[in-house]
């Protein structure tokens, strides 16, 4: 039953989980962005492979979006924002690397237990894809929780979203996948523009108030 198509899909989905773990322990924003670009690249490969084995050509659009938008445009844009805002030094974390990794492992174990037990009826490929996808989603959530910086939170959100795209493409014949991935791209573009315009440095507490005040002063 383990054909080549299964093995390749499995390999790519598994690599996505691995790269999610790599994101967890990055402590520099530039490195984090590079790892995220890798994450998006693997997603693009995985989606393209699914498009090929399911012979669903519209999925190639999703793969292309992942490749161009998420692996190239967004990391470059965030890179420039980091330079402009002068926040390239370090990421403050709420918990240490060791704790984050342990929590991550627990989350992956949780998603395996939940998904594999629940989907005994489904075909093995979709099943394992879903389990991997849930792991990526949960790891993305973990990253959003353990980072304070707005840029790394956005990276966390995007890797969470990569997990969703993995799940959607793994579900064979799912309609609206392309539309949904476009909707998500718009959402992310909004977030990135938001960070840039409002210069949100930290999670919710410090915005660069002076910049906004002088802006308002001009308008009044």
């Amino acid at each position: 039953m383990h054909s080549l198509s299964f093995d390749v899909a499995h390999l790519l989905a598994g690599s996505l989980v691995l790269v999610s773990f790599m994101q967890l322990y990055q402590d520099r924003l530039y490195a984090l962005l590079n790892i995220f670009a890798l994450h998006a690249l693997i997603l693009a490969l995985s989606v393209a492979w699914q498009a090929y084995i399911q012979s669903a050509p519209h999925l190639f659009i999703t793969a292309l979006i992942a490749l161009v938008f998420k692996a190239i445009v967004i990391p470059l844009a965030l890179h420039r924002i980091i330079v402009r805002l002068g926040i390239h030094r370090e990421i403050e974390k709420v918990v240490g690397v060791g704790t984050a990794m342990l929590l991550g492992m627990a989350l992956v174990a949780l998603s395996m237990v939940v998904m594999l037990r629940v989907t005994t009826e489904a075909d093995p490929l979709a099943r394992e894809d879903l389990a991997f996808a849930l792991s990526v989603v949960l790891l993305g959530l973990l990253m959003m929780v353990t980072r304070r910086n707005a840029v790394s939170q956005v990276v966390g959100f995007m890797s969470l979203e990569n997990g969703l795209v993995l799940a959607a493409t793994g579900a064979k014949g799912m309609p609206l996948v392309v539309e949904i991935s476009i909707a998500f791209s718009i959402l992310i573009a909004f977030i990135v523009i938001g960070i840039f315009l409002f210069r949100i440095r930290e999670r919710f507490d410090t915005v660069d108030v002076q910049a906004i005040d002088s802006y308002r002063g001009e308008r009044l």
Partner: protein
Amino acid sequence: MTFDPVGAILLIPACAAALLAVLPDYRLSARINILAALATFAIAFSLFFGRPDPGPYFHVDDLNNVFIVLTTFVGFTTSVFSGSYIAHELETGRLTPTFLRFYHSMYQLLMFAMNLALLANNIGVMWVAIELATLTTVLMVGLYRTHEALEAAWKYFILGSVGIALALFGTILVYMAARPVIGEGPEAMVWTRLLLNAIHFDPALLNLAFVFLLLGYGTKVGLAPLHAWLPDAHAEGPTPISAVLSGLLLNVALYALLRFKMLLAANPAALAPGPLMVIMGLISVVFAAFMLYRRRDIKRMFAYSSIEHMGIIAFAFGMGGPLANFAGLLHMTMHSLTKSAIFFAVGHISQVKGTQRIADMGGLTQTNPVLGWGLVLGVVAIAGLPPLGIFTSEFLVVTSTFARAPWLAVILVFGLLVAFAALFLRLNSIAFGEPRGNSEPAEASYVPMFCHLGLVLLVGIYMPPALVGWFQNVAQLLG
């Protein structure tokens, strides 16, 4: 070509949004905004008398008909209120004409997104529509560009995005459950098809899907402990948006949740979704009731009151059965009308006083009698005193619960009483006593506020049999 009400309900706001984006004159924009909202409401109302057959993307049934009419009605009255509200904001310089153009366009886009979410017969389309509604409200919450407003918008954005991401995972799982039964392709996301075939779905997958959907859409409903974005978003945005958020958007998210609850209820092997909703509802009621005591900001206080009432509604639908569902529907309608009326009053009050701090308000019934008494009437209604409509619906929720699960009813009543006391404590200092803070004569439009409160009073005293029959039908449908 025949007239298509569904298309019109979607097209009018969409075209109005595009038109308002290019019109520079704000007075004209405000009028067009009102006109478009009125036209949408009129067409939505016509759905009561004849509705199109369900298609692959849109459908109208008894359940969403109630929601659509309520949404378009409150959307219309809020646009009237918004007209006089923004004129004042422009005078004081808090908003500029450019921002207003943006605001009006976004308002219609939000109406479009909510109508689309309600009309959608496809769970994927419904998800996209709720995402669009989230995006537009985020932009409007941050409209004032102050530190607090941006912070609130960012918080809402991040929490809302995580919420809708989880909801999408749940949606994918529902598709996975449906695929073996219905087959691959778009058919397996059509809600009416899903409901017909739900009995054959894999129950374990459905259960898991519902957990994700409850967490995802529950965040948008504002159920505790997922409510963190709600008070900030309500307090910092323009007041018409607070009214629409509380009165409508929370309902739309709840509607999505109800649709999936019906799916689970149609499959006897799946877990009963009721208890989960009952628990989250009760936590929201009790938590929000206590949080009401420490509020210093008037809009934030009523935001917590919204959490409390969404808790009551989720509780009622979670209990299920004809009577509790009926009570839940009635409560939802009454809450939408009352809470938006309160926000209409609060919007003008904070303009008159120049602040949202409760400590700087006082003696409103002396300085601005109409506004002050309007607020008193609204709070009396929202606290659940007879003879207003919320009393009727809360009474129904409590009595139907006492008959089936007395202990749950005790907790619910406890939460209601705590909230009641908190609201009147604050109301006392705002509306009565020595006048405090600065006060100007209000240039307000009182019609929307008293129109809502009048409806709430009417339902409290006499409910038309047609309405009762209608709600009973829907309650049956919800199971």
